[in-house]
C-alpha cells in the first residue's frame, strides 16, 4: 500500500508550497517526499503488526476549512474533563479559535503562540526546533503531519518557572470536519528547572468520520518537569493517530498519561529519549474500548544516559468486539549503565469476542541494569465476584466495581484533581452503562 503522498499531492499543492519561510517549505517538501516513498504502513511493518491502517489509507481526506461557526463555550467546557478555570487554547477543526481560548491565566514569561504566529514572531526558534525531535525518517504519519500541519501551538516555559495551572489544549471536531484530515502540531520547550503541565483533549461535536494526525515534540531541560495528559475522546467514527517525541535533560522528569476511549481506530505513539543522567520518565495509560473500536499504544523509551529510570503502566479494558494493542519498547544503550526500567501492561477482557495483543519489548546493551516487564490478560476474578455477591452486592454492581478498581490504579497517577475526577466519573459511567455514548 504505497503512494500515500500521491494521493495527497494535489492537496499539498493547494497549500501553496508550504512556506514561507523557505526552510519550512523545504522541510514540508522533504516530508511529503518521505511520505510518498513510505506510503501508509502495512501490517508487514513490525511497528504496525497488530494495527491495520487500511481504513485510513483507502480514504482520501480533504484539508479542513476554518469552521463557519464555533460551538458555544459552555457546551465545549462541559464536553471536556478538567477545570474551566485552566488557561486554554481551543482548536476547532484544526484551526485556532481565539474567541474560545483564554490564555490570560498563564504567568508572565510563558510564551504561547500559534504555529502561524510563532513562525512570524520567533522565526529563529522555530527554525532551530520545529521537526528536530519529531523526525519523519520511516515515520509515515509524522511525515504526513509535517507536510500538512497548518496550525498548532508553540509553548515555551522559561528557566525555573513553575507554572501553577496546566494549559488545556482542546481539539474539537464538529460536523463540518466530516471527511477532513486534521494535523495539529505542538512544540513545547520547558527550560531548566521549570515545571509545566499540559492537558490535551480531543473531543467531537456531532463529529462523524474524520482523521486526526497529531504530532507533538517536547524538550524537557535539565531538572525540569513536564506532565502531559492526553484525553482522546474523538468521535466513534473518527481515526486518530497521535505521536509525541520527547527529549529529556539531566535529572528531568517527563510524565505522560494517555486516556483513550474514542475513535474507531486510534494509535498513540510516545517516544522518550533519556539524554541526561538521572532523568526519569513515567508513561501511564488507560484505554477503554468496546463495539468494534481499535486502540493501540506504542511506547519507545531510549535509555541513552546512565542512571535513568523509566516506569510504564498501561491498562486496557476491552469489551464487545474491540481490539486493544500495546507495544512497549525499552532500549538500553551500552552507555546507559545503572538503568532502572519497569514496564507493565494489563488488560481486562469483558466479552468473549474482545481481543488483545501485547508486545512488551526489552533491548538491552548495558550490563549493570535492572529491567523488568510484565503483561497479563484475563477477565474479572470469579472468586472476587462471588465474594462480593455473598456480601449482598448485585452481580452488575460487583462487576462495575471490580472493573472500576482495575482502572483506578492508572487513574490515580493523574495529579490534576479536576481531570482525575472527571475521568473517574466517565469511566464509572461507562462501567455501569449509564453513559450516553
Amino acid at each position, binding site marked *: 500500500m504505497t503512494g500515500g503522498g500521491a494521493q495527497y499531492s494535489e492537496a499539498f499543492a493547494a497549500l501553496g508550497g508550504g512556506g514561507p519561510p523557505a526552510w519550512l517549505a523545504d522541510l514540508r517538501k522533504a516530508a511529503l517526499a518521505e511520505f510518498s516513498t513510505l506510503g501508509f504502513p502495512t501490517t508487514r511493518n513490525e511497528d504496525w503488526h*497488530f494495527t491495520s491502517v487500511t481504513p485510513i489509507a483507502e480514504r482520501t481526506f480533504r484539508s479542513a476549512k476554518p469552521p463557519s461557526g464555533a460551538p458555544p463555550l459552555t457546551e465545549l467546557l462541559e464536553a471536556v474533563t478538567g477545570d474551566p478555570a485552566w488557561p486554554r487554547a481551543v482548536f476547532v477543526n484544526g484551526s485556532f479559535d481565539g474567541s474560545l481560548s483564554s490564555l490570560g491565566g498563564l504567568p508572565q514569561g510563558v510564551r504561547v503562540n500559534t504555529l502561524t504566529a510563532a513562525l512570524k514572531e520567533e522565526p529563529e526558534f522555530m527554525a532551530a526546533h520545529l521537526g528536530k525531535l519529531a523526525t519523519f525518517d520511516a515515520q509515515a504519519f509524522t511525515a504526513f503531519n509535517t507536510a500538512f500541519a497548518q496550525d498548532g501551538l508553540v509553548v515555551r516555559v522559561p528557566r525555573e518557572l513553575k507554572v501553577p495551572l496546566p494549559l488545556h489544549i482542546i481539539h474539537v471536531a464538529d460536523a463540518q470536519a466530516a471527511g477532513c484530515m486534521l494535523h495539529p502540531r505542538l512544540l513545547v520547550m520547558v527550560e531548566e528547572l521549570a515545571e509545566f503541565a499540559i492537558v490535551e483533549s480531543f473531543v467531537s461535536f456531532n463529529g462523524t468520520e474524520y482523521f486526526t494526525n497529531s504530532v507533538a515534540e517536547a524538550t524537557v531541560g535539565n531538572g525540569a518537569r513536564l506532565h502531559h495528559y492526553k484525553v482522546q475522546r474523538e468521535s466513534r467514527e473518527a481515526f486518530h493517530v497521535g505521536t509525541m517525541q520527547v527529549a529529556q535533560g539531566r535529572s528531568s522528569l517527563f510524565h505522560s498519561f494517555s486516556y483513550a476511549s474514542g475513535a474507531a481506530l486510534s494509535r498513540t505513539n510516545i517516544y522518550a529519549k533519556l539524554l541526561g543522567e538521572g532523568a526519569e520518565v513515567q508513561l501511564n495509560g488507560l484505554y477503554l474500548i468496546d463495539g468494534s473500536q481499535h486502540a493501540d499504544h506504542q511506547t519507545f523509551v531510549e535509555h541513552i544516559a546512565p542512571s535513568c529510570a523509566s516506569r510504564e503502566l498501561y491498562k486496557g479494558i476491552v469489551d464487545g468486539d474491540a481490539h486493544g494493542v500495546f507495544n512497549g519498547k525499552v532500549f538500553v544503550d551500552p552507555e546507559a549503565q545503572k538503568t532502572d526500567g519497569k514496564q507493565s501492561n494489563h488488560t481486562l*477482557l469483558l466479552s468473549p469476542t474482545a481481543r488483545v495483543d501485547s508486545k*512488551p519489548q526489552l*533491548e538491552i*546493551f*548495558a550490563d549493570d541494569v*535492572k529491567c523488568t516487564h*510484565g503483561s497479563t490478560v484475563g477477565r474479572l476474578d470469579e472468586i472476587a465476584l462471588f465474594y462480593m455477591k455473598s456480601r449482598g452486592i448485585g452481580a452488575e454492581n460487583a462487576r462495575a466495581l471490580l472493573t472500576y478498581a482495575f482502572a483506578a490504579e492508572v487513574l490515580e497517577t493523574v495529579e490534576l484533581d479536576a481531570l482525575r475526577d472527571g475521568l473517574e466519573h466517565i469511566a464509572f459511567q461507562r462501567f455501569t452503562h449509564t453513559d450516553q455514548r
Partner: protein
Amino acid sequence: MSSSIESLVNREYQYGFVTDVESDTIEPGLNEDVVRLISSKKDEPQWLLDWRLKAFRRWQTMTEPHWPNLKYNPIDYQGARYYSAPKSVKPLQSLDEVDPELLATYKKLGISLTEQKMLAGVAVDAIFDSVSVGTTMKAELAKHGVVFCSFTEAVHDYPELIQKYLGSVVPYSDNFFAALNSAVFSDGSFCYVPKGVRCPIELSTYFRINAADTGQFERTLIVADEGAYVSYLEGCTAPKRSTNQLHAAVVELVALDRSSIKYSTVQNWYAGDKDGVGGIYNFVTKRGKALEDAKISWTQVETGSAITWKYPSVILQGDNSVGEFYSVAVVNNKQQADTGTKMIHIGKNTKSTIISKGISAGEGQNSYRGRVQMLPKATGSRNYTQCDSMLIGNKCGAHTFPYIEVANNSSTTEHEASTSKIGEDQIFYCKARGLSAEHAISLIVSGFCREVFKELPMEFALEAQQLLGITLEGSVG
C-alpha cells in the same frame, strides 16, 4: 569483570577436533539434480523424491528471513555441499563393526556408546554427518513395539507412517530453512511409540557435523500414538572449523490423544573463536502438535553455535492439551542467539508454560522471541511465561520480544521478564563464605538455571552443566 569470569568466558572450545574418515561427498551446489542425486543415493521411493522436489521448487521462490535480531554474512547456498556420508559405513549389525576411529570420536566427546548403554540404559542412535552409524538397544525397544531408527531406514521399513506424518506439523512450505531442509535432508531419526506404550528407556541421538563445509540437514520425526509416552534426548557437539557451516534441521513431534512427548536438547555446536570467526549457523525449525489431552514438553540448553535461530513450538490443537518450553541459552564472545517458542492455543482448556533463561557474556547477543496465541475457540486456556536474562560483562546484550495475542476472554496469560547483572553482592556473599569467585558464579548461574535443569533427565542434566560454557556446580537434577 573479574579475571575468573573472563577466563571462563574465553575458554577454548574443548571438542574441536576433526575425525579423519574418508567421506562420500558430492560436489558443492544446489539444483534439482542434487535433490534427485540425494534421493537416489538413499534409494528413496518416488513419492519422497516428489515431495523433495516440491519443497525445492517452493524454496526457490522464498527469500531468506531477516527479521531475527541477528547479524551474519550472507550464506552461499550454492557453495555448500548437500550430501556427505562416511564411506566406511555400510549396513551394520553391531557396534563392533563401527569404524574404531568413529568410536574414538564419541569417546572424546564422553559418550562411549557401550558405556552409556550399560550405565544409563540409553539407546543411542549416533548420527555421524549424514548417515546413521550405529543403533543400540533395538531389541529391547522392539519388544515393546517401539520403532527407533534412522530416517532412511524408516522410509524403507515404515513408509506408511512416514508418508502419513512427514510434513504434517512442519509443512515443506513452512519457512525458508524448513523448505531447504525438506528438499535436501540427508538423514535423521524416526521414532514411533505404539498405542498405550510407555517407552522403557530414554531415546537419544547424538548429532555431529564432521566433514568440512557440509551443511547438515537433519530431519527428526517422533510420533507418540494414543496414550503413549516417550522421552527423547538430542545432544550436539561439533568439531572446530574456520568456515561457517549451516545447520538447518527440522524436528516434528506428533502427540496423539492422551500421549506425552518429552524432548530434551543440549546444543553445543562449534561457536566460532573469540573473534567470531567460524562457528555453526543453527537455523532449526522444531514444532510439535498436541492432540486431545496430549502433552509436549521441550527442554533445551543452548550453549553453542555462532548463530542460533530456533523456536521449538507447540500447536495445542486438542482440548486439554499441554505445552511446555524450558530453555537455557548461553552466548559469549560473538555468539548470537534468537530463540524462544510459540504456543498456539487452539483447543479448549489448553495450558502452556514457558520458562526461558538467557545468559549473555562477552559480546554475545541473546534474544528471547516468543509468541503466545489464544485463538477465539481456545476458551479456558492458560499461559504462564517467565523469561529472565543475566548479563555478565558490559559488552553483551539481552533482548526480549514477546508477542501475546489473546482473542477470547476466558483465557489468562501472564508474562514476566527481567534482565539484570550477575549479582555483585551475591558473589561477595559467597566469597565471604570461603567460595572462590569462579565457584560463586557457578553457583549463581546454576541457581539461575535451576528451573530448567530440573526438567532435564538426570544424565543429560549433568552433561548440560559441563557444556554450559561456564562451569556449574551445585544441586541439579
